[in-house]
């Protein structure tokens, strides 16, 4: 007799908790061959707003943590993801219809990108910052600081690597994130949230919404408490409207990317969500 499996309920990840959508809505997620996989939560405008509130509350603590600490926390995500490798490979095989080799490669790449970005946490400020030789008796230094709350439309064509590639760089500097997962492949996003929830990432630093990006993204784009908008995975949406809405509060906007290089690892993706602060201080022997 084969054992009857226990399927998982996939919910949202907001403020460190796993609530259902307040709307009570779900949508059916199917495999590449059309078989039923799960009912994912279909996040609403209210869920998006709750996620922004959670993210805003988490910014000060995360941005205020030492860079060394942030690096270790991000590295720990890689450790835990490695430990649950088989689970993600299986999920990706089911969801994307990928071969074992392809799914493994995707999970490996996602883990390695966490490691790559973890290492940047206590270095990017040295590369992106400057001591400025001003013409006067002043100590003058420019340093990158986190922009604040970053809303992300994750790449839609993959379960894990696209999501990680968009979320990880935003976390490096100390931003908090609200990410809308791939609509078609949302399940690994929630499994990743389980990894985050158990890997020392403070609650609210990452908030994961599943559902319709077309429905949720406009509320994030126009939300006055969102500081930046990463449209990397919004290529199929009316993303110009999203950029237009973001202009009302002068959000920093990254435009959509497509193809295999979308959200590829660069220092640019880290600095895109930073603000350069320049501090002047008088020098005097008196």
């Amino acid at each position, binding site marked *: 007799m084969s054992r009857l499996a226990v399927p998982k309920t996939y919910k949202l990840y907001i403020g460190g908790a796993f609530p259902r959508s307040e709307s009570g809505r779900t949508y059916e997620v199917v495999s590449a061959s059309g078989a039923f996989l799960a009912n994912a939560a279909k996040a609403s405008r209210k869920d998006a707003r709750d996620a922004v509130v959670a993210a805003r509350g988490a910014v000060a603590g995360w941005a205020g943590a030492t860079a060394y600490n942030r690096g270790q926390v991000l590295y720990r995500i890689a450790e835990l993801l490695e430990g649950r490798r088989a689970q993600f490979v299986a999920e990706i095989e089911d969801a994307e219809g990928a071969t074992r080799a392809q799914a493994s490669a995707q999970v490996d790449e996602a883990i390695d990108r966490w490691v790559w970005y973890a290492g940047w946490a206590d270095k990017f400020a040295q590369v992106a910052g400057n001591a400025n030789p001003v013409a006067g008796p002043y100590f003058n230094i420019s340093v990158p600081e986190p922009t604040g709350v970053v809303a992300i439309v994750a790449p839609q064509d993959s379960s894990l690597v696209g999501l990680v590639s968009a979320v990880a760089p935003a976390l490096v500097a100390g931003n908090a994130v609200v990410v809308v997962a791939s609509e078609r492949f949302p399940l690994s996003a929630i499994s990743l949230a389980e990894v985050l929830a158990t890997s020392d990432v403070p609650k609210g630093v990452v908030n994961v919404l599943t559902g319709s990006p077309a429905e949720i993204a406009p509320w994030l784009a126009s939300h006055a408490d969102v500081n930046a908008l990463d449209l990397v995975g919004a290529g199929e949406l009316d993303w110009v409207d999203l950029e237009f809405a973001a202009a009302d509060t*002068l959000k920093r906007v990254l435009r959509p990317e497509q193809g295999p290089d979308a959200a590829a690892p660069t220092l640019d993706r880290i600095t895109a969500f930073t603000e350069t602060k320049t501090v002047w201080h008088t020098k005097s022997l008196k």
Partner: protein
Amino acid sequence: MSFLEYAPAPESRAILSLRDSYGLFIDGEFVDGHGTPFQTSSPATEERIATIANANAADVDIAVAAARRAYDRTWSRMSGRDRGKYLFRIARLVQERARELAVAESLDNGKPIKESRDVDVPLVAAWFFYYAGWADKLDHAGLGANPRSLGVAAQVIPWNFPLLMLSWKIAPALAAGNTVVLKPAETTPLTALLFAEILQQADLPPGVVNIITGAGDTGAALVAHEGVDKVAFTGSTAVGRAIAKQVAGTQKKVTLELGGKAANIVFDDAPIDQAIEGIVNGIFFNQGHVCCAGSRLLVQESIHDEVVERLKSRLSTLRLGDPLDKNTDIGAINSAEQLERINELSDAGVDEGAERWSAPCEIPENGFWYAPTIFTNVQTSNRIAREEIFGPVLSVLTFRTPAEAIAKANNTPYGLSAGIWTDKGSRILAVADQLRAGVVWANTFNRFDPSSPFGGYKESGYGREGGRHGLAAYLAPSSAVSAGRAGAQRRLETGESTSAEPDTAAERPARPTRTRTTRAAKKGAAK
């Protein structure tokens, strides 16, 4: 005659040889505009200075085409070394004609000659000198080897620092290899046109810099023009928003330097004499027509009365009047329109219950003037504590603890600048860390330097001007370098199919920094 009275000491206007009218500067020549010419006048006397050509949409087309030609045929092909030498030439010419430029600036803008002569124009020369040296060192600008220029830059600048803002825009753009179409503010076109003469003296190739004059619609047409690759704007947050909407969905790269409502925080252990001078400099420099002005004074409650008394006493010694007089501290408000806005907000302050005090100074009969003014008993909800006044008006609020000071300082949609006054170094650094502002001055205020990045957080805009960051705003990584793509490589090798062809993605507007060649993808680990 008391010790506060001085004989007039006006700077001579004889150094100026202005034309009666000025055309648009396009392709190295002054040409007529197709719009209706307008007059520029002195805000101190309301006397006409010159007639200025008005660029309409057709002129914008012509100017952008000239810039594109110059970019394709000349400037983008020139060595960085030679571009740099042109910029050094310009810096020297500005120094040679410094006094003339200062007089013209004070005449047209209304700012005191001591400021145009000692601050604006020396910084203009410094800006060109600084960026001149970058032109052949772009590999070190932080974008990897062989960064590329963007193309034609559309630049729209405000009236508060006309020539200085021109230098902030043009110097880095040219150093990076871009060509420029710049529109100065409607009320202060004069020094930009004198600068065009300097470009002729420098023998800068035609079309590399084009200067078109006009009002807001000229600027809007320029920003919207399809032939433009980069937009750089300094001005109000309202216009900045409109520009951000205008460029949505395009490939244009944008920097916006917008409004501010800076907090100047004075702790009870501050060096009080310096602090008083710093507060005065922070809000009354350039009649308060400064986006980063310290317009909200946050003073620790225990020293509030002393600071306010000393401020009033200091302000009573400021001399308001003829901008060309070397003893003038407070010049003219730049326009009737701006004066009206200051009056409107100032009256709103009184209506909302704040107490207004203005320095007792004689207001000249002609021109636009506003006496240095302090509001006390200001609430954080008052309009004068929230909205940018852009005039010589200071709102005084109090705090008890550093945490309260930080919370109040950050309680604004703006985030351009801030000031901290205390003798305690560790507190300065801790407070500076917490302030959400792009420039923080500690025990000083309103300092600027070409090597020092300047720009805002939040609704004060994005991008930086000055320093390496200001250069990077006019560059993109070279195609080969930007794509260090380990992940893409591995995915390609494992034969994973992707939904989009790499090259078709380029049809969609995207960041110019992204390239998608498979060759680049195989270059190895992310840099």
